């Protein structure tokens, strides 16, 4: 019996904690708990209003059972065509604008001033949510799909140029050098040394952005920049949940088809 007393105390095995230092671990945990308490404490909820709204919530869910495509079909189809055309034009324009910005934002191609300028454009475009940009563009260019199209093109730059620039920075230098060694000009160097290496990624990103632009085109309409969003907003304002459900179902269906198609194309390209 004396042998067991000498054994170290046995306790069940536990995994290693993610943060090794217990002070940091507890500090972060307690800090986060305090923040949560403060955050939840400041939420101001009108429970009576929520309670009254539950009926409407059920009405909306029920509307998904019998969506009404017909009575506002004219508005829906107009909004849809506007959304789809905005998506196509803004994606094409966005790609055309992002390629030069991406070239400028790749540290291995551009000198420092150009690099900083292009990174600035990307940061600006990424910081603002599409809707805020749409508000400003509506104020500048008037209501309608033109402002929405510009918004989506601008948002495309931040997304596409950033990811493309990162891809350009990761290219295999030796291939680009081989083109330089043959005496190719700067444009030839871009075209044969760099472009083939980033093309699959560019195609993949463009298809992904097409998808995002369609989804976003559904919201910019809320602030008057054209597209299906305006129709949807009106439907909600009138509590016409069956029409709203129909629009949402159409959006979901189009996004699903687009996602499936772009998946197929990306598989073929890569």
């Amino acid at each position, binding site marked *: 019996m004396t042998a067991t007393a000498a054994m170290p105390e046995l306790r069940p095995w536990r995994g290693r904690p993610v943060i090794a230092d217990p002070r940091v671990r507890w500090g972060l945990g307690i800090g986060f708990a305090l923040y949560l308490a403060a*955050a939840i404490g400041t939420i101001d909820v009108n429970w009576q209003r929520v309670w009254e709204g539950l009926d409407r*919530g059920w009405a909306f869910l029920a509307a998904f059972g019998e969506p009404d495509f017909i009575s506002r079909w004219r508005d829906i189809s107009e909004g849809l065509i*506007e959304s789809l055309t905005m998506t196509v034009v803004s994606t094409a324009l966005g790609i055309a604008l992002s390629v030069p910005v991406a070239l400028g934002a790749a540290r291995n191609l551009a000198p420092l001033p150009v690099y900083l300028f292009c990174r600035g454009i990307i940061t600006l475009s990424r910081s603002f949510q599409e809707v805020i940009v749409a508000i400003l563009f509506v104020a500048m260019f008037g209501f309608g799909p033109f402002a929405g199209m510009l918004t989506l093109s601008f948002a495309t730059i931040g997304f596409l140029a950033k990811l493309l620039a990162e891809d350009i920075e990761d290219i295999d230098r030796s291939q680009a050098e081989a083109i330089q060694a043959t005496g190719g000009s700067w444009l030839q160097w871009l075209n044969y040394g760099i472009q083939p290496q980033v093309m699959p990624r560019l195609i993949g990103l463009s298809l992904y952005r097409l998808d995002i632009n369609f989804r976003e085109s559904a919201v910019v309409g*809320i602030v008057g920049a054209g597209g299906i969003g305006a129709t949807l907003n009106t439907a*909600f304002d009138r509590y016409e949940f069956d029409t709203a459900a129909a629009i949402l179902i159409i959006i979901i269906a189009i996004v699903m088809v687009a996602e499936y198609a772009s998946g197929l194309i990306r598989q073929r390209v890569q």
Partner: protein
Amino acid sequence: MPVTGEKGWQRRTTPVQLAVWFGWLLGVALFVWCWQTISAATTWFFVTDSPRVIADIGGRMFPPAWSYLDKLWQPMWDTINIATLGTLMAMFMAVPVAFMAARNTTPNAYVIRPLALLIIVSSRSINSLIWALLLVAIMGPGVLAGIFAISLRSIGFIAKLLYEAIEEIDHTQVEAIETTGAGRAQVMAWGIVPQIMPAFAGIMVFRWDINIRESTVLGLVGAGGIGLQLQSSLNVLAWPQVTVILVLIIATVLFSEWVSARVRHAII
């Protein structure tokens, strides 16, 4: 160039070349048609007049009304809370959905998996602003609607990335736990969860960062946060206040991006 009858180098065969050319033709035609549709719906006078308007607005935006900042701390705090609480709430709903959607952990591949995928795609296709529009109509304006809107939109995003991570786990580690005679819950806790934990933390922080950006506009439809102030400033054309709001939004977004990059860097 002398005609020798020899075939020169061609990247593609002629039929493929034609097909590519035809594809471009279709693409350009589609673009032109779409452009014309937009153009028809545009009042071109406003567009040609825009340089004057831009100069005008630009002139009014400066100098910014910095004193307005005092009224913005409370809405900004709300905005951050909407993003954080919304992300947390989404986490609790997204994790079960992800496990139901992953091929290797789904309880039933023919009924439950398609259902989980449907939840993911519906949540992803509808922007948080639309969710907010809907929730404001249902539960009234306020921060709560914003939190729900953010979390409903985030479920799909988190669940999609998480289930892809679950499908990519190393199966040998799971088997090792299984051979020790562990039950289903133990296999989950010691075989699967440790493998996806880094990816999971990365996804959550990434989504939180996106949600900060999204929650800045929820106020436009009445779902709380700084968007409300933006809306009211725009309505009374108080451009100096708009500048302050935009600067504050940029600062917050850059800060959250910095935090998320630091955390992801520490994890990976």
